[in-house]
């Protein structure tokens, strides 16, 4: 293992990643580092993080390390890395060589410590854990062992890989380090969609909405905007990080909290089922700026760099059909009990939506501000050329979440690099989004085919069991 402290004084840390949303994990960490203002260096190792979710990093200070792990939803924990080895012997040798000046503060008599033994890809027996700890006897800890309230916790972390059919007897690698902090996955439960006050049909699961807020590098006193705000789920996660939030939506029902509730057992949304009430539920109401009913295709803002981040999940017609104000006769049925004027709406192709969104971001983001949005993709046709581009925006990351064999969505993160000029305009080089609801049709077709397959399978099973099962009679 390379030196624990390099010439600049940056120490080495080990990040134990979550084993899900694989592509999102490193971009999330990098965006968080940007948000908290910490430089970050990812070390070159031969770990294939798809099967071995461990990353070695260098950071300038422990404070930075704590800030970073304190915001991560796709990381399990962060350790100050003292050593690693492919065998126990190798690890022990490295630990014996660990510089004394670095370990001494934790070995003192007047301090307390404890060990934690954990594994990825295997459940360890108590016996095994005890053996591992016993083998570390050579470490010169002089302090008190305190299993409940130790000042310092030291982890032994074994990596058995992610293939349950090929779990080795001994781990591929073992890490040893001082615990710095845990990721924020517990917050996912606190903010879980079913607990939230206001649910629309497309409320994203809480974990991913926090990841989006991290990708956008949101922070205290920033202004974050969602032009397709719906029920405000993305705003809650930005407000959690101290940003002030603002949203618009074309659907006045959703904004006001009127109409049928999509939650089971509830007919109508109450007056308190709106975005502000959502924020209030988590003590974040003071960060609510405003919401408006407006068409995202037509900016209502004066030319001004207003937003530090635009975070959105556009209505790409898969669950809720896209709408736009126009002059065609396309009467849209959602007008029961509506006192507010709702002009007829026309088809709004995804292509228009995406170019409008990028133009909007280029105009209204501050320089270095970020646009984070989901892009639906038909996987067989995917190339990087379908990603919308704009001369003011650079692509920061592009992470795929697979929804089915043929359909996925990609979380696109872009950063504004220079001021907007009149001549600037978004473009899509290879454009599969031009036909209205093209992606939606493909998705629905696949969903239908799946259902048909399942039904056929189920019918076949029912036939078999009814002919096989003996009748039970007393």
């Amino acid at each position, binding site marked *: 293992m390379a030196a624990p402290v390099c010439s600049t004084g940056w120490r080495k840390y080990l990040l134990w990643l979550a084993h899900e949303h694989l592509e999102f994990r490193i971009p999330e960490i990098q965006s968080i580092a940007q948000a908290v203002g910490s430089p970050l260096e990812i070390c070159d190792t031969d770990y294939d993080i798809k099967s071995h979710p461990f990353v070695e990093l260098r950071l300038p200070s422990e404070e930075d390390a704590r800030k970073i792990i304190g915001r991560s939803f796709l990381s399990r924990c962060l350790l100050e890395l003292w050593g690693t080895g492919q065998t126990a012997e190798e690890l022990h040798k490295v630990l014996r060589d660990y510089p004394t000046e670095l370990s001494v503060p934790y070995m003192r008599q007047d301090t307390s410590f404890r060990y934690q033994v954990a594994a990825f890809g295997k459940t360890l027996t108590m016996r095994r854990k005890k053996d591992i700890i016993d083998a570390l006897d050579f470490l010169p800890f002089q302090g008190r062992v305190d299993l409940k309230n130790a000042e310092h916790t030291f982890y032994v972390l074994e990596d058995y890989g992610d293939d349950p059919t090929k779990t080795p007897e001994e781990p591929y690698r073992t890490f040893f380090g001082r615990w710095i902090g845990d990721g924020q996955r517990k917050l996912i439960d606190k903010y879980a969609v079913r607990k939230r006050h206001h649910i629309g049909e497309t409320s994203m699961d809480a974990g991913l909405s926090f990841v989006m807020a991290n990708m956008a590098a949101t922070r*205290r*006193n920033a*202004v974050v905007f969602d032009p397709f705000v719906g029920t405000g789920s993305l705003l809650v996660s930005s407000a959690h990080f101290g940003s*002030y939030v*603002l949203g*618009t939506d*074309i659907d*006045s029902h959703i*904004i*006001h909290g009127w109409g049928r509730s999509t939650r089971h057992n509830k007919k109508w949304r109450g*007056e*308190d089922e*709106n*975005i*502000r*009430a959502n924020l*209030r539920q988590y003590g974040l*109401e*003071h960060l609510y*700026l*405003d*919401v*408006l*009913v*407006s*068409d995202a295709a*037509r*900016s*209502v*803002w*004066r030319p*001004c*760099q*207003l937003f530090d981040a635009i975070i959105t999940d556009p209505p790409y017609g898969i669950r809720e059909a896209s709408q736009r*104000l*126009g*002059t065609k006769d396309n009467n849209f049925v959602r007008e029961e009990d509506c006192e*507010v*004027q*709702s*002009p*007829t709406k026309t088809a709004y192709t995804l292509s228009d939506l995406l170019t409008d969104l990028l133009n909007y971001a280029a105009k209204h983001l501050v320089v270095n501000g970020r646009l984070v949005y989901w892009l639906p993709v038909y996987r067989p046709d995917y190339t990087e050329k379908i990603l919308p581009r704009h001369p003011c925006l650079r692509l920061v990351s592009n992470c795929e979440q697979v929804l089915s064999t043929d359909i996925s969505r990609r979380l696109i993160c872009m950063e504004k690099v220079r001021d907007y000029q009149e001549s600037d305009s978004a473009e899509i080089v290879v454009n599969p989004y031009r036909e209205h609801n093209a992606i939606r049709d493909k998705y629905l077709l696949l969903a239908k085919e799946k259902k048909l397959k399942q039904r056929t399978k189920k019918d076949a099973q029912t036939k078999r069991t009814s002919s096989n099962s003996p009748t039970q009679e007393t």
Partner: protein
Amino acid sequence: MLLSFRTIMRLLTHNMLTSHVKGVTNGYPLKLQAENIKVMSVDFNPEFVARMIPKLEWQALIQAAESIGHLGDLPRELMPEYESNEEFLKMAHHVLMEVEVIEGNLECPETGRKFPIKNGIPNMLLNEDEV
């Protein structure tokens, strides 16, 4: 203090909005007509207020606040080093964040077209003939 469940429109937001009726070149600022205003206490965050001030059209803020009778002692011109002037920031905070318009209209200065504010939410949707 009973927290209202109603939503509001703040003067901070009003300062950013413009009329986007087709063909309009002078759509800013929208004239604010308020029928129902509430003043609600909001946590004072001086850093946030100081950050927002450079983004504002100060005169439009003064005009709007005055038109609804809530200008108070807010200075009509920005003074140098306002970022460290806590008293000033408090007054700005009050006007920007604590004066809430519940019902009213935003009127396009060029065409007279009114965008209604209902339950504190402005409806900026245009009609078919305006797009």
